[in-house]
C-alpha cells in the first residue's frame, strides 16, 4: 500500500533545507562533528544531506520507504556518506545514548497524542547526556487545531486524515524541563491564504541533562 508520504516523495522534488535548521547545525557544528546526528522524520533527506555535506555523521529516519530510498540515492549521487532507515519515530532503530545531536523538522507532530509523546521519549532515549536537539513542535494556536475535528484534548485530525498533536508552551515546559538543560522555546508562526489561517509552531532546543 502506498501512503500519503510515499506519493509526496515520489514527485522527486529536491527540497532545500530550512534556514532555521541550517542555523542550528552551523552554530553547533563543532559539537556535532564529534559524533552521530539524527534527523527524525527526514523525508527525502534535505537536512540529513545538508549535515553530511557539512562533514557530520548524519542519520536520517523516516516512516516512508520511498522517502528513504530517495534520500539514499541522493546521498549516493552527491558521493556523501549518510545512513538512512525506514522506521517510525515511535520505535527508533538505535541503541540508547547513540547521538550527540537530533533534529526533527516538520515531523514530530504528525501522529496521535500517544505516538508523539512516545516519539519525544524516543528522542531522549537515543541522545547521549549533554547532546543537543532542535525540534519543531506544533502549537495549539495552529489553524489545524481549530479547523479540524479533535481526536482528543491535544490532537486534531488534519488533511488526509493525518492526526496532528499540538502543545502549549506550558505543556512543553512541563514535559521537557526535567530532562533538559538550557531549554529554549521559540514561537515561529506564519499566515496562509491572505491572512485567513495561521500556521503556529514551537521550536524547542536545548541539551539532554547529564
Amino acid at each position, binding site marked *: 500500500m502506498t501512503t500519503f508520504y510515499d506519493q509526496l516523495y515520489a514527485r522527486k522534488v529536491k527540497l532545500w533545507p530550512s534556514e532555521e535548521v541550517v542555523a542550528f547545525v552551523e552554530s553547533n557544528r563543532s559539537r556535532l562533528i564529534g559524533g552521530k546526528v539524527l534527523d527524525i522524520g527526514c523525508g527525502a533527506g534535505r537536512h540529513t544531506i545538508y549535515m553530511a555535506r557539512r562533514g557530520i555523521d548524519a542519520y536520517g529516519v523516516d516512516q516512508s520507504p520511498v522517502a528513504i530510498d530517495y534520500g539514499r540515492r541522493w546521498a549516493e549521487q552527491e558521493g556523501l556518506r549518510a545512513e538512512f532507515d525506514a522506521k517510525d519515530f515511535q520505535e527508533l532503530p538505535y541503541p540508547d545514548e547513540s547521538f550527540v545531536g537530533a533534529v526533527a523538522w516538520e515531523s514530530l507532530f504528525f501522529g496521535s497524542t500517544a505516538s508523539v509523546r512516545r516519539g519525544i521519549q524516543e528522542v531522549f532515549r537515543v541522545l547521549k547526556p549533554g547532546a543537543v536537539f532542535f525540534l519543531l513542535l506544533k502549537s495549539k494556536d495552529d489553524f489545524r487545531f481549530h479547523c479540524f475535528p479533535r481526536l482528543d484534548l491535544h490532537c486534531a485530525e488534519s488533511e488526509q486524515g493525518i492526526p496532528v498533536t499540538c502543545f502549549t508552551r506550558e505543556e512543553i515546559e512541563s514535559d521537557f524541563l526535567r530532562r533538559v538543560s538550557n531549554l529554549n*522555546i521559540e514561537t515561529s508562526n506564519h499566515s496562509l491564504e*491572505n491572512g485567513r489561517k495561521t500556521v503556529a509552531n514551537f521550536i524547542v532546543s536545548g541539551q539532554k541533562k547529564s
Partner: protein
Amino acid sequence: MAGNTASWEDYHIDLERKDAALLWPDDFVIRFYKSELRKIGARRVLEIGCGAGRHVYFFRLMGLDVVGTDVAHSAIDFTRRRLEKEGLVDGVELRVADATQIPYSDDSFDGVLAWRFLHVLSPARAQECVDQIFRLLKPGGKVLLGTRSPRSTNYELIRAGKGVDVNFDYRSGQLSERAVQDTYFSRKELASLFSRFEGVEIEHMEWTRNNETFRAAYWAVTAVKPHYVCQCRSGE
C-alpha cells in the same frame, strides 16, 4: 541617507568574515519561486536590496537570469565574490543602485523580489519603490516584497521611546537586526501601496529569539502586475 548607506557598508564587511555557508535562502522566497515564478515560467528576475546575495545565488542555481541591486558597494562585491567562487556569475548582473532608481527599462522582469528592506525607507520612498517595481515588471509578472510589521519588538521599543536595538545580532551569522530608519505599515497601508497591482495577498510571519524575549515580525506581499491597466483611475 548617507549615514544609512555607511552602516550597510559595515554590515556586509562584517558578514564577509563569517561563513558564507550560512547565507541560505529564506523559506518564504523558496516557496515564492516554486509556487509563483516557476508556474508563470519566469526567466528573468530582479532582486532589489540583494544584500549578501543569498537569493541571487538561489535564483541562479534554479536557472534564472538574475539582476541583483543593492545600495551598498560591499553587498554587491560580496555577492560577486560568492558567485565567482561557486562558478555562477554567468547570467547574473549586479549593480549598486538606490531602491527607488533601478536603471532598467519598463516591463523588463518576470519577477521582482524586494525582501525585507522596505522598512528602512521613508513612507514616500517606499511608495516610490513599489511604483518602481510596477514599472519594471512585465504584465503578468509577480512580486514578492517583505517588510517589518508593527508586531516587531523593535516597533514596541521605538513606541516606548527606547529607540532601536542597535546591538542585536542573530545567533550564527544570520542577518543582523541593526535597525536603521524604520517605517512600519499596517496591513491596510500596505495594501494601499500596492493598489495598482492585482491578486494582492498579504501574509504575516513572526518568530522569536532568546526564549521569546525578542520577536521579529514581517509582512510578505505577493502581487501581480495586471495585463491591462485602466488609465482613468484618478476619475474613479
